[in-house]
């Protein structure tokens, strides 16, 4: 294995190198021993008018920007832009998700409100500002994806990335003259000045190792392993002692016994003698139709009331009576068919009679007194009236100027 690996390297100056170099000069490197020395040298290089050069140090050195005569960085603008995009997209995302797409009442708060959105906005601002600044700089300035760089794999890079400080002057610089540059860097006190050559193979032609089968295999293997582990953990591990502390905790489960209270019930019954709002005891409860006290519908004819009525009707009544009260629901045939609500009988009923059926039930139709409160019951009655009217419209319901339209 090791021998095989060794074959891939080229031996240069008794050192193992990855790629073979050509005779073409890429630039000159110089190593300095202290931060002060490299700052002084950088000042001189900048003064001599070189443009394509750089300083490599193992850590940032304060004052280097000034020494190299660099203009103040414009990176801040990019970060600011990405941060702003992050903030705005976070707000838009939350506004859409909780305000439109998936409205959920949480703690009686508005669907979309600013306060709870701020932490997410804050996180996304930071995330996008940081992440995209880095990705952006890596791609744009480091010209990624790039597989190799002539400065890599040199003694110079090895030293300046750990304990020394270096200056590199590129051969592409207009003023570049190898002898002159070497002379200058030596006179600036560099401890070792070296020529760097370009790669023998064209840089662009180096094959991307991303597509090597070994790499792809490892990638796929990792993906499969992660998936399998996740599957096992989420489906088995968290239900197994001792990892089941989240699954088995003292809590209420619907339709299950509960250990929380002595009587084994999870839900509590209301305190004796109390009446919940909107659920006043119904005076005609259990009485036959003929004995019902006829009261008129107290709910106003407003859009909100009809919408409430429709909502409750769709939820509680439509499964049996059908969306339009025509007794043609999806349960048809699986349950004794209820009568249509458009019969003359019901149309001539008083509102109070329908109300009575909702509270009381009728024969095999159960009572809905517990699920639907007083206002909602009356709203349903309004809605049923509207349904009936829609099937038996009068001439006068047609707008007078209806034909003109």
């Amino acid at each position, binding site marked *: 294995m090791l021998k095989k690996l060794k074959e891939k390297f080229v031996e240069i100056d008794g050192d193992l190198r990855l790629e073979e170099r050509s005779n073409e000069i890429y630039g000159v490197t110089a190593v300095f021993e202290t931060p002060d020395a490299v700052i002084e040298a950088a000042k001189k290089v900048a003064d001599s008018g070189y443009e394509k050069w750089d300083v490599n140090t193992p850590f940032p050195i304060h004052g280097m920007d000034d020494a190299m005569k660099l203009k103040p960085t414009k990176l801040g603008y990019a970060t600011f832009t990405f941060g702003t995009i992050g903030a705005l997209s976070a707000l838009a995302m939350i506004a859409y998700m909780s305000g439109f797409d998936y409205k959920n009442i949480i703690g009686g708060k508005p669907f979309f409100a600013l306060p709870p959105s701020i932490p997410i906005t804050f996180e996304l601002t930071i995330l996008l500002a940081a992440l995209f600044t880095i990705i952006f700089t890596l791609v744009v300035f480091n010209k990624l994806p790039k597989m190799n760089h002539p400065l890599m794999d040199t003694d110079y890079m090895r030293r300046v990335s750990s*304990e020394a400080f270096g200056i590199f002057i590129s051969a592409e610089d207009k003023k570049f003259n190898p002898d002159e540059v070497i002379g200058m860097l030596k006179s600036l006190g560099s401890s070792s000045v070296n020529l760097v050559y370009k790669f023998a193979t064209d840089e662009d032609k180096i094959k991307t190792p991303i597509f090597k089968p070994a790499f792809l295999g490892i990638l796929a293997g990792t993906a499969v392993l992660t998936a399998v582990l996740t599957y096992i953990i989420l489906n088995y591990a968290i239900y197994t002692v001792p990892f089941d502390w989240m699954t088995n905790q003292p809590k209420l489960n619907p339709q299950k016994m509960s250990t929380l209270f002595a009587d084994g019930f999870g839900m509590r019954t209301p305190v004796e003698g109390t009446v919940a709002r909107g659920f006043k005891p119904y005076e005609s409860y259990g009485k036959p139709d003929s004995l019902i006290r006829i009261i008129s519908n107290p709910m106003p004819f407003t859009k909100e009331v009809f919408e409430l009525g429709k909502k409750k009707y769709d939820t509680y009544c439509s499964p049996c009576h059908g969306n339009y009260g025509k007794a043609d629901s999806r349960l048809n045939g699986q349950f004794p068919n209820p009568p249509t609500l458009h019969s003359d009988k019901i149309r001539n009923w008083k509102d109070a009679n329908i109300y009575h059926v909702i509270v009381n039930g009728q024969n095999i139709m159960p009572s809905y007194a517990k699920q639907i409160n007083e206002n909602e019951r009356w709203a349903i009655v309004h809605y049923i009236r509207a349904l009936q009217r829609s099937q038996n419209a009068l001439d006068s319901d047609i707008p007078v100027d209806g034909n003109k339209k």
Partner: protein
Amino acid sequence: MKKLPGKFGTIAALLLVAGVVLIALGFFADKQRAFFNYIIMYSFIVSIAVGSLGIVALEYMTDAQWSTPFRRISEFLSFGIPFLLLLAIPIVFGIHDLYHWSHKEAVEADPILQGKAPYLNEGFFIIRLFAMIVLWLIFYILIIRNSEKQDETKEYKLLTRNVKISIGFAPVLMISLTITAIDLIMSLEPHWFSTIFGVYYFAGSAVAALSAMVFLSVSLKENGYLASELTDKQFHSMSTLLFGMNVFWAYIAFSQFLLIWYADIPEETFWLQHRIHGSWGVVSLALLFIHFVIPFLILLPGRMKENRLTLKTMAIWLLFAHFLDLYWLVMPNLNKESAFFSWNEIGSLLFIAGFFMLVFKFKADRTNLTPIGDPKLEQAVGLHLHPDISID
């Protein structure tokens, strides 16, 4: 070393006297209101004096070098600490005007106050009030004495000793400021509580103390009192710290708000209710913009952090913002209906300015404005701002 002009001391004395006169008049006009103003003033002075000592300790703890040339400024401001012993006395006489829990009849009729009585009672309150000052004073003497001694002896040992003392001071500072905030400000409304309140006051104090340091550093530098080698880079670091602390304040302020808003429990929300409705709502909104939004936007660009004029303006601005913050914390407890501001409130502003100018002048006349004996100074001045590394 250049001395501060005598005119500086005269102006300071005039401000102080004017402040004292206005405060005294305030006591004749409306005693209760004057006491509430006094609490604002006292908390503000604690913010700057103790906060400055905190900044000094922070430099020692983190082994920061860039701030060493400015450290004396914070050291001088922390000389306000000994005077707190005097300044705290009026509060003792104002307990009944300030604190509802100090009335026996009120406590007897109120089970909640009875529950809090073991902590909120006059005797223990006064003990805590002075115990905190004594704690600060001890650390003030320990840290500043070493720092000043180093000017002559130039001993390295004093630096390491101060690092250790500062590390000891850090928890003391946090706990003592929390106690101060709870006692002086939060207990004005004894039914209300917020566990983040101490941090909130601490964050505001840090902003105020840093602002004072930034303002003085820039002014002193412009008038040639500080080393000429100091560059924009140091001021950049300084204003970045100020900027960061201000964001921290906003973060804490928002955390407090969000939790109360979300839980929506009446025993917590009423405190915010007073501050959201009517003219207090305007003050709350103003606080949001003055303390956070505007300084945030102005100080965000890197270039603004080096602009001396912006720095000075924003430092004064943020000092005012901290005053507004304390006003917003304290005053709605006096009058829940509507905000108010007139000459009664100005006295404390003048006093604070005069007080700290005098304190600063007194120390500056006797001590070096630059800690010349500190070994970190050499690296701090000029370009040599790289971390120490040993090549071997």
